[in-house]
């Protein structure tokens, strides 16, 4: 590689890193507890397990669970219902708000026992530590612009990773893999650490970074889906007035209807009419596959919320599928506790790479200044000598 080419790549590496390092450090630090959010919620008691019931206890219908949830929060409207019998047996998570169209930050959450239809938990409205970590990590509490900004920082980090790999070649050409020079200078010691941790964590960092960037596009992607596919699926309802809460048909029937349409899939998420994930006239009943891979791919059945007739069932567009498939590779939640621990170790390694990179920049600047002042003082001495 020519000296000039190396220099250009060095500038790319320096500037992309300098701009994104502070945000990447924030993301790595807030991401660390988020890896273990399930465990932390259980440990802090924020996650109440459903009690075990005697055999043969009659199971409540979903419509009964809904009535009890609404009675617990009078005046609120239903938005979403979610359950996952493998992860959270016996539990049903409700999202309510003042109206079904209220913005997502006004959501109120309620956990119900799906078997007894009793309220399990009504979490407090105020943000706890994990909520703060989550919001800093996702959008720095700045909504969609914050999210897209972090996506841009992720793109810079991608450029920084790529340029770092390119520079690894000329730097390490004469040396053995994994060399750490401890006897020369402090700067070389840090440089070698930066190089070895950077090149080894490369693949992980790249995957987590790219999937993070993809996730920042979730809001525009859902908007595009609503304006395109969803509008197309429910085009005959275009001119009808929005359905009101009192007119809603049985959700149990809507779910049964969906199961007929997609017999080998599992229902796990309901969006009410008027919410972000449905039309103004339908229950969107989301189904997913049964294998580890297909369970990441969900698709909505749109059931007329008044008549309980199936209007349409269609796969989500490729861009939403991409987002859903990319999520586990960002969260590290698909391989049990050992994977979470490994995720945390990679995260710590990335933090060290970021800090050592920052150190190298400072050290380089300092040595340049010293060089400059040495040159200046040399020049002065020369002047003095010449004048005499």
């Amino acid at each position, binding site marked *: 590689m020519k000296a000039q080419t190396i220099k250009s790549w060095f500038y790319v590496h320096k500037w992309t890193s300098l701009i994104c390092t502070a945000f990447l450090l924030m993301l790595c630090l807030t991401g660390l507890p988020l890896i273990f959010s399930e465990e932390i919620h259980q440990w802090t008691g924020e996650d109440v397990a459903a009690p075990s019931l005697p055999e043969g206890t009659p199971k409540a219908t979903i419509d009964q669970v809904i009535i009890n949830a609404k009675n617990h929060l009078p005046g609120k409207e239903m938005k979403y219902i979610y359950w996952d019998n493998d992860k959270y047996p016996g539990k049903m998570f409700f999202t309510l708000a003042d109206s079904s169209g209220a913005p997502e930050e006004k959501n109120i959450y309620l956990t119900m026992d799906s078997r007894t239809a009793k309220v399990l938990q009504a979490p407090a409205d105020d943000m706890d530590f994990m909520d703060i970590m989550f919001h800093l990590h996702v959008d720095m509490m700045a909504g969609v612009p914050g999210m897209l900004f972090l996506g841009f920082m992720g793109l810079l980090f991608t450029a920084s990773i790529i340029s770092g*790999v390119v520079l*690894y*070649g000329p730097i*390490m*050409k004469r040396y*053995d*893999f*994994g060399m*750490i020079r*401890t006897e020369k200078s402090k700067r070389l*010691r*840090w440089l*070698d*650490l930066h190089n*070895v*941790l950077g*090149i*080894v*964590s*490369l*693949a*992980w960092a790249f*995957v987590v970074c790219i999937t993070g960037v993809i996730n920042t596009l979730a809001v525009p992607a859902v908007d595009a889906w609503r304006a395109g596919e969803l509008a197309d699926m429910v085009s005959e309802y275009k001119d009808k007035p929005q359905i009101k809460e009192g007119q809603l048909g049985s959700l149990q029937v809507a779910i049964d209807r969906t199961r007929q349409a997609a017999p080998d899939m599992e229902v796990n998420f309901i969006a009410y009419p008027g919410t972000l994930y449905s039309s103004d006239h339908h229950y969107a009943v989301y189904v997913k596959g049964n*294998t*580890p*891979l297909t369970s*990441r791919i969900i698709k909505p059945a749109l059931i007329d919320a008044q008549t309980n007739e199936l209007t349409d069932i269609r796969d989500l567009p490729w861009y939403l599928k991409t987002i859903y498939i990319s999520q*586990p*590779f960002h969260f590290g939640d*698909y*391989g*049990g506790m*050992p*994977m979470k621990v*490994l995720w945390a*170790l*990679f995260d710590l*390694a990335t933090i*060290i790479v970021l800090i050592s990179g920052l150190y190298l920049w400072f050290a380089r600047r300092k040595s340049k200044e010293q060089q400059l002042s040495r040159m200046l003082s040399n020049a002065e001495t020369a002047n003095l000598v010449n004048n005499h």
Partner: protein
Amino acid sequence: MNNHTALKLWGMPLLIAVITFAGLISAILGTGMWHYMSWVALSYPVYIMVKYGRRFFS
């Protein structure tokens, strides 16, 4: 650059990247055996980082 030096320079980084990708993908393909394979694969780069990185503190 001849093949020998290219291998010496990029052999380990390439091997580690391939093992990492394999570890990341295997856990999504299934549970049980697939998870074990993923843990072993992802442990390798972590082991390498500890093995060489610790010299920084010596």
